[in-house]
């Protein structure tokens, strides 16, 4: 049985895109542990439709990084069997909506096997899912599906917002003893940032981070919404409103401490998610925050999200996606009373 080889990867810091950072994490993961395998649709010679697996087959060979037949339940089920057999699969679902055929394998097996077997069988595996929109993709290529996984006990759910987090969260996910659903915000694949690669373990996994300090209100965001939240905070600063921005990074487990500390400090909170709002992760955050910060809150916790509609066609996606303006409008409502605009508008509408 192959085992972990003590890895000696020099630490180098450089500017790269999130896609490159993920590619580096996969390479270092494959290098660090012979049990790591990368497979999925078009991840081999092509290097993935987003090039995240670029060059891996060339460097590590067909045995370590390979293309599977076109079947997502098959990919996940194969990973379950390989993990039962002692390997550490890191698999790719080509797009968010194309992970749905694997939903039974994920919900009934990946999430449950450790528990079913009292820990005698474990599934150290990573399911990489490029998700969310903002790239002009056609239908079924832009779903925000994180809530489906976050609601499923037994899955850890991670989503980076910077190349550096992408690298370290993926390294941590690969080394994690449990299955991790690794949600990659498509539109951030090409965003650049300073990234420290190499041989250390980051503390990112399971810990939210304050991306911007502020006094007046807390914006809680994750994945694709983090840059939008920061943009809104910058704009608000012009109007003299000082917003704090928390980047969750890990949805499951959830970092209550960081979020609660921030909201107790600012006394106001807006939760931002790109996904349709109803029963999404943002609802969980809002519910938790008011449960834990009720007496510190000067206003209700408000949510900014996509609408409860199927993801729009490209020419209309900008109307759907939360932008800085939608966030700022909502921040403005933090001052209001029990009658939020929406109800009032609803009456107008009906």
């Amino acid at each position, binding site marked *: 049985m192959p085992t972990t080889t003590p890895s000696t990867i020099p630490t180098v810091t450089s500017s790269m895109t999130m896609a490159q950072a993920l590619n580096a994490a996969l390479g270092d993961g494959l290098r660090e542990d012979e049990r790591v395998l990368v497979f999925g649709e078009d991840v081999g010679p092509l*290097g993935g439709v987003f090039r995240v697996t670029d060059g891996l087959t060339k460097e590590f060979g067909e045995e370590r990084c390979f293309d599977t037949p076109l079947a997502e339940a098959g990919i996940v089920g194969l990973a379950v069997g390989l993990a039962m057999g002692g390997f550490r699969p890191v698999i790719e679902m080509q797009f968010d909506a194309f992970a749905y055929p694997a939903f039974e394998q994920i919900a009934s097996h990946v999430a449950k096997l450790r528990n079913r077997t009292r820990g005698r069988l474990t599934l150290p595996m990573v399911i990489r899912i490029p998700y969310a929109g903002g790239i002009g993709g056609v239908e079924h290529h832009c779903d925000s599906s994180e809530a489906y996984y976050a609601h499923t006990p037994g899955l850890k759910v991670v989503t980076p917002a910077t190349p550096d987090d992408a690298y370290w969260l993926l390294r941590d996910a690969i080394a994690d003893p449990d299955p991790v659903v690794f949600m990659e915000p498509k539109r951030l694949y090409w965003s650049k940032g300073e990234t420290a690669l190499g041989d250390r373990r980051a503390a990112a996994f399971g810990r939210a981070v304050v991306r911007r300090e502020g006094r007046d209100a807390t914006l809680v965001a994750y994945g694709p919404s983090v840059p939008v939240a920061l943009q809104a905070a910058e704009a608000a600063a012009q109007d003299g409103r000082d917003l704090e921005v928390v980047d969750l990074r890990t949805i499951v487990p959830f970092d209550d401490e960081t979020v609660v500390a921030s909201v107790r400090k600012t006394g106001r909170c807006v939760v931002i998610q790109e996904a349709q709002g109803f029963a999404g992760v943002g609802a969980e955050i809002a519910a938790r925050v008011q449960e834990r910060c009720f007496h510190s809150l000067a206003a209700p916790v408000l949510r900014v999200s996509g609408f409860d509609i199927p993801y729009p066609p490209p020419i209309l996606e900008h109307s759907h996606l939360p932008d800085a303006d939608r966030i700022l409008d909502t921040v403005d409502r933090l001052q209001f009373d029990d009658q939020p605009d929406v109800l009032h508008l609803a009456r107008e509408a009906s």
Partner: protein
Amino acid sequence: MSVRTTRETVDGLLPSPEPVRFVAEDGTAVQPPAGYPAPDDERLVEAYRRMVLGRRFDRQATALTKQGRLAVYPSSRGQEACQIAGVLALRENDWLFPTYRDSVALVARGLDPVEVLTLLRGGWHCGYDPAATRVAPQCTPLATQTIHAVGMADALRRKGEDGVVMAFIGDGGTSEGDFHEALNYAAVLHAPVVFFVQNNKYAISVPLAKQSAAPALAYKGIGYGMRSEQVDGNDLVAVLSVLTSAVEHARTGGGPSLVEAHTYRMDAHTNADDATRYRDSGEVERWEAADPLARLETYLSGRGLLDAEEIASARKAAEEFAARVREEMNADPEADPFELFDHVFAEPTPQLREQRALLASELTATED
């Protein structure tokens, strides 16, 4: 306590040992296997005209991606024999369940090209009227449409209509569980449906050898008790003959069929794909020799069914069609943001009305 399956039963469900062929690559006629009538000459000439137009449309669509008029386009160049025969085998009251790859087939069925391109242009998810055209929305989630096709076929039977349903799917799509479930449902329900696999040898970058170890995909039929056939997918005469008999077999209550066409995707998966990463040009060149359009042109000319004049007129019609497409696609697509809330349900929910109102306030805010 189980019956013996006779050689006859088995042979009746297996495809021909080699792909059915009427015309060799050099355009000369070859002897097809028994039981496959040659299509009428008029149909073949009509098919030729549509192939010329289809190929020109395909080239135009690819060009539109370069001009930023299409978000993306999956070309079917090299698969025209399948695209055209697939729709010529159908009547108006038949239904077609196509994929993103099959825009040429839709144009050949007479759908408005701009409506067909609405999806890839980003204007809406489906630009044409599926009910009026009897063409389901082009399907992206692989193989999912094959089960819908079975349901529609059963619906036609229940309504006493004599319509038949054809479901298009690629070689890669046959690996999905939904394909298996669809074939089994079709066989058990004895539904009037034809599953037409365009085996173009690639699923994006994944070659057939990594997709299946079967002697041919058509050999999947017998596992469902479904008759099956394989055909040279670059020989329009053969594809049209085989599909027509499969469709008529279904129409007359004979049940479903599986037909595999051996063809080749000449271009990359889409304009966004780089095929040099996974296949060599030599392979592509070898398939150039098997070009379905040139083959049909030679064959029909050789039989005196085409002359220079007819060829010229077919090309002229194609040029005019392409010009019209280019022109109409030059206008920016129109879109009303409030339509986002109109079709989620028959009536928007109170929550959607709130959200619509929120968007309205955002839009007025940005106006002033």
